[in-house]
C-alpha cells in the first residue's frame, strides 16, 4: 500500500430516491418519505489499494458506486478524485474524470456490444479518449488483452463466442484501455463459477500490483472481499456501519450488522465438524 494523499475522497454523500406517489397521496397532495439509498457516506481510497464494499441487496452499494462516477447524481456531499471536484465537473472536465474512473459491471454480456468484435470494443475506448498507442490498433488491442491474460487471437471474436470469464476479462481490458486511476468493480465476479471467480480475483490482485491503480470492489460475498480487499466497508440501509482493515473487520467485527452478516455467511467448511 502506498502512502500519500488519498486518490478518492468521498464525504457526506447522500442520494434520495423519491417514490412514486400513490393515488391517495396525490389526492391528498402529500409526499411519501423518499428512500435514502446512500446516507451520509464518507470514504477514502489510496492508489494501489483495494477497498471492498459489502452489503445485502438494496443496501445502496451500487448506488454509491454509481454516484462516485456520476452515473447517478448525488443529492449532497463531495467527491474528489486526485483533488478534482467530481460533482462540479462539466463537459470536457467530466469526460476526463470519467476516463480516470472506470467501471466493470456484474453482467459482462450486457456491458459489451454484441455486434462489435472484442478488438473493436477495446480500441474504440482507447481512441475516444485519445490514448497514446491507440493509433496502432493491433498493438493496442494486443497489449490490452495480454494485460488480462487473454490471447490476442480473441480480438476478432464477438462476445457471444466467449465464456463468461473471458467476457469479464474483456470488460476489464476495455476499462483499463483508457488508463484509469480508479477501477470500480460492481459485483464483477458474482455471476461467475468459483473456478473462474478465483482466476478473476487473482487478476485483480495482479493489476493492482502492476498498474498501481485503486480498486473499489463491490461484492455481496464477504469471502470474495476477504481474498482481495485491503480494507472493507460494510453497508447497511445506505450507511457505512463499519470500515477498517479487512483482517480486523472480518476477524473482530465491532458492529452488530457486520456480525450478523458474517454469521450468516456459508462456510465451505463443515457446519458441524464430524
Amino acid at each position: 500500500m502506498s502512502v500519500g494523499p488519498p486518490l478518492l475522497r468521498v464525504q457526506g454523500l447522500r442520494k434520495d430516491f423519491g417514490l412514486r406517489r400513490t393515488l391517495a397521496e396525490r389526492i391528498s397532495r402529500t409526499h411519501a418519505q423518499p428512500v435514502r439509498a446512500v446516507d451520509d457516506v464518507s470514504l477514502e481510497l489510496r492508489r494501489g489499494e483495494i477497498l471492498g464494499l459489502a452489503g445485502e441487496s438494496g443496501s445502496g452499494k451500487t448506488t454509491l458506486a454509481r454516484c462516485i462516477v456520476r452515473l447517478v447524481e448525488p443529492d449532497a456531499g463531495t467527491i474528489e478524485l486526485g483533488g478534482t471536484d467530481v460533482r462540479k465537473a462539466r463537459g470536457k472536465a467530466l469526460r476526463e474524470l470519467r476516463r480516470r474512473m472506470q467501471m466493470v459491471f456484474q453482467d459482462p454480456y450486457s456491458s459489451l456490444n454484441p455486434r462489435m468484435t472484442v478488438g473493436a470494443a477495446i480500441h474504440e475506448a482507447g481512441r475516444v479518449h485519445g490514448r497514446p498507442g491507440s493509433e496502432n490498433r493491433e498493438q493496442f488491442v494486443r497489449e490490452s488483452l495480454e494485460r488480462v491474460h487473454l490471447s490476442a487471437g480473441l480480438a476478432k471474436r464477438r462476445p457471444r463466442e466467449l465464456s463468461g470469464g473471458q467476457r469479464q476479462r474483456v470488460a476489464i481490458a476495455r476499462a483499463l484501455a483508457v488508463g484509469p486511476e480508479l477501477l470500480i468493480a460492481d459485483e464483477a465476479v458474482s455471476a461467475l463459477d468459483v473456478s473462474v471467480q478465483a482466476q478473476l480475483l487473482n487478476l485483480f490482485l495482479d493489476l493492482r500490483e502492476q498498474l498501481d491503480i485503486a480498486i473499489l470492489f463491490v461484492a455481496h460475498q464477504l469471502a470474495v472481499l476477504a481474498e482481495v480487499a485491503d480494507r472493507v466497508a460494510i453497508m447497511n440501509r445506505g450507511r457505512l456501519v463499519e470500515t477498517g482493515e479487512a483482517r480486523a473487520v472480518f476477524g473482530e467485527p465491532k458492529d452488530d450488522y457486520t456480525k450478523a452478516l458474517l454469521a450468516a455467511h456459508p462456510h465451505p467448511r463443515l457446519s458441524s465438524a464430524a
Partner: protein
Amino acid sequence: MSPPLLRIEGLQVEFDTPHGQVAGVRDAGLVVEAGEIVGLVGETGSGKTLACRSVMRLIPYPGRIAAGRIEFEGRDVLRMSPRELREFRAHDVGMIYQDPFSSLNPVFRIGHQLTETLRANLGLGKAEARARAVALLRDVGIPDPERRALSYPHEFSGGMRQRVMIALATASNPRLLLADEPTTALDVTTQAQILALLKRLNSEHGMGVLLVSHDFGVIAQVCDRVAVMYGGHIVETGPVEAIYTSAEHPYTCGLLESIPRIESAGQSTRLPVIDGVPPDPTERLPGCVFKPRCPYAQPDCDTVTMALEPVAPGHATACPVRPFRAANRTRSSRTGAQV
C-alpha cells in the same frame, strides 16, 4: 432391503442440435435414500440441473433422456404412463427452482395459487384447501399467514417468495424434494433461513432432498452426501465430511481450493486456481473429461473410461490415478492464464 427413494443409473441426456448431438449428462448415477439430503454440486454447464430435472422428466425440447434408468421407490419413472407421471409429480416429488421471481403467477394471490395446487393434487374442498394453505404458509415461516395469503407475489421479497415456492412444492407432503439452486438468487442472511427451513422439513417429515448448487458453502451447511459433477459426469461422490477432508478427485480438490475464504482477510496471497476452461459439451474427447485441466494427468488418462470406483465405504471417485496426490504434478500455475 427396500429400494432407495431415488436411484439414477447410467443417465444420458442428449440434445439434437443442427451442429450434431450434444450430451448434457453422461452416464450419471446417483442414489437418494429416504430422509437424506444429497447435494449435487458443479459449475455452469456441468449437467447438474439437467440431471435434477430428469427425475421429473422435465427436460426441455430438443433435449431427451437417451439412456439410463430412474427409479423412485423401485418404480421406473421413465416408463410411467402420462397418468402415472402426473400422479408421481403431484404426490411423490416436489420441485423448487432457482428463480422465485418467475415461478409464481403475478396475477393471482398467493393463497389462491396454493389452494389451486392443493385442490388439484389432493382433491381437497375449497374451505379445507384454504385452511391448509394458511397452515403451509405458517409452516414455512411466513408471519401473519391469513393476511399474507391475500397478497400478490410482487408484495413478497425474494426470500418470502422462495418460502412460498417451498410451501407449494411440499403441499402434498412429497417424499422427495428436488431443490435446484434454491438460494442462489438470495442474500446470505435469507439464504441461511431458507437452508434452515429445508433442513427442518427434512428432519420433521423425513423428506429426501436432492439439493443442486454450485456453492460448496451451501452444500456443507445442510447435506449428508455430495455428488460432484463435471462435464456431464459425476466425478466423485461420498459423505460430505469425506469430500471436504479427503477428496479423491483432482477436480473436487481444485474446486475446494479455489473457494474464497473469510480467513484469507489481510493476506495478499493468490487463490489456487484450476487452469483452463470447462469442456465444450459438443466435443467428446476420449478418456477422462477433466484430463485437459488436470495437474496430475498421466498418459493413460486419455484412454480410461470414466467410471466411479470405490475408495472408501460410500466414497467413490472417477479418477483412475490413485492416490492422485502421489502422482507427479505435471502442471502447476496460479495465474489462471487462458489461451
